[in-house]
């Protein structure tokens, strides 16, 4: 069939001109992301396995038990998660994918951080301003429903292969829930509490920071949890453009038709996903 409206070509032209005219910007982004990923990676890998295992286990325990860490109730609540985290990490180590798991985690952390830095302020804006919300919503729909692979093409175009296009594609793909849930959380803060704040003379900033954000926090944290999980799933796909980590092993498995490799790395991703999910969730659900 003949194309009447070649939208794709317009987009391509636009992206071409962006690439040429703003090359300094892409270079700066590339440098920044590469720097963050490499340094964080090196930092994690400089700690011996046992040490990092203990650190993560302690972090998981504290995330679950919180202020009750040193009480019986806290222990009862958190030991299950802690044991699971230790066993899971041991399994990954035993399969020989420790380094790859660290690389994946690093990419997830960096992507999540970038996503949140943009997502939460946009979420606040969307909650406070209906026009902004009306504009932001379809963009989020677009970001979430566009097949994830599609982002990889311009990402390579701007940043060539490596970790950076992976991170960029991941950020785009995983950002929407942080905007949506921040927006939702703030909009769901009961009107009477906000009215009380206003009646006592709170200005917009005080209402945001003393009332809306604290009350929206559980919802925002649920959003962060979603971002982390989406980032993990995207980081795996991003290995197609050269991002390192467990995803790269899965990719190798596919190319070499290696069932063992594919299964092991897949299992590693599942374990990693569960650990990240449970830890981030328990931060959110704790009082």
């Amino acid at each position, binding site marked *: 069939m003949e194309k009447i409206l070649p939208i794709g070509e317009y987009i391509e032209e636009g992206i071409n001109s962006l690439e040429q005219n703003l090359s300094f910007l892409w270079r700066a982004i590339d440098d920044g992301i590469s720097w963050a990923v490499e340094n964080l990676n090196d930092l994690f890998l400089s700690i011996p396995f046992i040490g990092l295992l203990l650190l993560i286990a302690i972090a998981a325990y504290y995330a679950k038990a919180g202020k009750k860490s040193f009480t019986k109730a806290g222990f009862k609540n958190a030991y299950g998660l802690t044991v699971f985290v230790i066993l899971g990490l041991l399994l990954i180590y035993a399969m020989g994918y420790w380094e790859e798991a660290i690389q994946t985690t690093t990419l997830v952390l960096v992507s999540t951080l970038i996503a949140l830095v943009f997502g939460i302020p946009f979420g606040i804006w969307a909650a406070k301003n209906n026009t902004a919300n009306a504009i932001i919503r379809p963009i989020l729909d677009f970001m979430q429903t566009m097949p994830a692979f599609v982002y990889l093409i311009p990402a390579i175009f701007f940043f060539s292969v490596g970790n950076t296009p992976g991170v960029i594609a991941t950020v785009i793909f995983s950002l929407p829930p942080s905007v949506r849930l921040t927006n939702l959380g703030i909009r769901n803060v*009961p009107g*009477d*509490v906000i*009215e*009380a*704040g*206003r*009646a*006592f*003379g*709170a*200005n917009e900033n*005080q209402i945001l920071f*003393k*009332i809306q954000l*604290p*009350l929206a*926090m559980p919802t925002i944290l649920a959003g962060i949890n979603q971002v982390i999980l989406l980032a993990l799933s995207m980081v795996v796909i991003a290995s197609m453009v050269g991002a390192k980590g467990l995803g790269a092993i899965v990719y190798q498995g596919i190319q070499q038709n290696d069932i063992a490799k594919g299964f092991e790395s897949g299992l590693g991703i599942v374990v990693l996903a569960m650990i990240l999910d449970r830890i981030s969730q328990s931060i959110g659900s704790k009082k």
Partner: protein
Amino acid sequence: MADEREIRLKVEDLTLIFGKKKEEALKLLNQGASKSEILKKTKCTVGVNKASFEIKEGEIFVIMGLSGSGKSTLIRCLNRLNDPTAGKVFFKDHDITRDTNKQLLQTRRTEMSMVFQKFGLLPHRTILENAAFGLEIRGENKVEREERAKQALKTVGLEGYEDQLPANLSGGMQQRVGLARALANDSDVLLMDEAFSALDPLIKSDMQDELLQIQNKLHKTIVFITHDLDEAMKVGDRIAIMKDGVVEQIGTAEEILTDPASDYVKAFVEKVDRKTIITAETLMFDRPTIVRFKKDGPKGAIRKMREAGVDVLPVEDDQEKFLGYVWLKDMLKLEKEKAKTIETVLHTEVPSVYKHYKVEEMLPLITGHNHPLAVVDEEGKLIGLVTQTSLIIESTRYSDKEMDKLIDKANEL
């Protein structure tokens, strides 16, 4: 006597219109169009329609009306949580409707505090932090604001709950926190929007008593919104009755009950929940001036009557037992005769009631007399007096006919 007090809040022709074509609606309203006409023509709702009143320093001013009458809208105009479409609101001498945003925040922070029907507490903060919220917004340092919040919590009887979270407290206690938060700010004006309406009847009554006690100590200017006439009568020095955004009548409880300004007010007053049974205890004023049978001669009794501004006083013996009444005219006669005791003119054949007696039980007792009803305890000690006026006010809630009968009887006497 109320006239000597300074005017704290003054509302002039306050109008608030909801909707998009406010200007047009306001014009129609000024031409005398009705609320429904305006709604039809402009799709605007008139929330408050030219309300005017003055509230004096230290007064509890109740705004009463059914839901949709505009009372909550009106109270929100006083601190501009709702921005009035037209009219003025003066706090002392400055017109709040002209405040800039910054001035407005300042007014809300220092001059007016509000208590809400749904409490409006922050669930993630402790009771102490909630009570200190207004001071925190105002920028007081932590030590200072917690000190004052503690004091306020003590005033409302919540000592020891400082570190709890609101969710752990009952509704009544949560509202005490709301009240403490408002008191901690130490502002002159308290705006109470259906503050006790969400509470159980018993707790509600407790809170009303407590508010009155606090008011006795602190003498705030209180604007109190309610849909409950009993509550309005109990706490209000003056009451404004609202209907469809219009203030129908302003007056004391007595004035409104005895002389309703419109059919609406009359219907409202009649429609009061008849099941609420008013007892002698709620009606009586306690610690009345008392003539002591042995100690006070005619001269002492006359002096006491002059001081209290009445012409009849109860008499009790040295065991504080209620004996009867003496009248000013008899005392004056005795004084002329240079009599030393009041025994000869003491009216002892008078009814007295216990404090749980109801209005309907007391009404028959006042016929044929014109002195107040004595309320006594089991040992016959006088604990208070119910005036005939207050009984008659209560009786107006029953029917007009009974009211007429009572007035006739009163005239005969």
